[in-house]
């Protein structure tokens, strides 16, 4: 029986790594992967609380979040491909189309 605290702690560490990756990387693909990492950390929390409470609501919502993550990544990668056609780059500090 794994203790609740260790599950929460590992998911918190995964979330922190995801936040750090979003903040420090320049490659937009890595940033998208780090967003996925953060969603997974949230999912881990949901599953932990579902086991803790003995109900299945957390697992059902984790499944919904997984579908949402798939939708998000497909839109994000389509945006990356469109931006790459426009700017020839996937570095976020070179994407300044709104600057005029």
């Amino acid at each position, binding site marked *: 029986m*794994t203790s*609740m*605290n*260790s*599950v*929460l*702690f*590992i998911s*918190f*560490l*995964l979330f*922190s*790594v995801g*936040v*750090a*990756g979003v903040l*420090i*990387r*320049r*490659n937009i*693909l890595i940033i998208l*992967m*780090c967003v*996925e*990492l953060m969603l997974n950390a949230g*999912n*881990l929390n949901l*599953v*932990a*609380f579902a*086991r*803790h*409470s*003995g*109900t*299945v*609501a957390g*697992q*059902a*919502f*984790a*499944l*919904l979040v*997984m*579908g*949402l*993550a*798939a*939708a998000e990544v*497909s*839109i994000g*990668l*389509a945006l990356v*491909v*469109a931006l790459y*056609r426009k700017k*020839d780059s*996937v*570095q*976020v500090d070179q994407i300044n189309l709104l600057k005029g």
Partner: protein
Amino acid sequence: MDSFLASIGQYLFHFFGLVALAGALALVFARNAINSILGFLTCMLSVAACYLCLSAEFLAVAQLLVYAGGIVVLFLFVVMLVEMTKAREKAVFQKQAPYALVAVLAGAVAITGVFWRTWFAPNATEALTLPAGLGQGLNVATQNAQAVSRGIFASYLLPFEILSVILLVALVGAVILAKTERV
């Protein structure tokens, strides 16, 4: 054999959690995008193993199918489409990386302090008292798929249907965004 599995069972979660953490660190700090994707894959597989340790079997299989089977392959295709044609990037990290790392570490230390307060308490986490009508007649631990299906198709049918509409919108939107301009 069973007692042996039960005795190592509580350490398996920690092992896979640490592997997931290592994969996440490789994802963030690798210079090559392909190495980052391999770290991402390691992380997702380990998270699926963690779900298994938390007795969420259906979710573990869904994680394997969706992430290892779908999303990683999608990322791999886009990286090969976008990255390989260009010269290597000069700088991997943003200019604000030191400040961002300091901020993230400060937040991590603060939340670790919260964990520290509850870590050694004997009954740090009390059992939640949620209405147990969801899994009625089912054992969530041993009939996982049945219990999850009851959750999705009975109790949370509306979020499920909304998710299906979102997936349809994302499908159409991705096709519209990524197609070339051709009249």
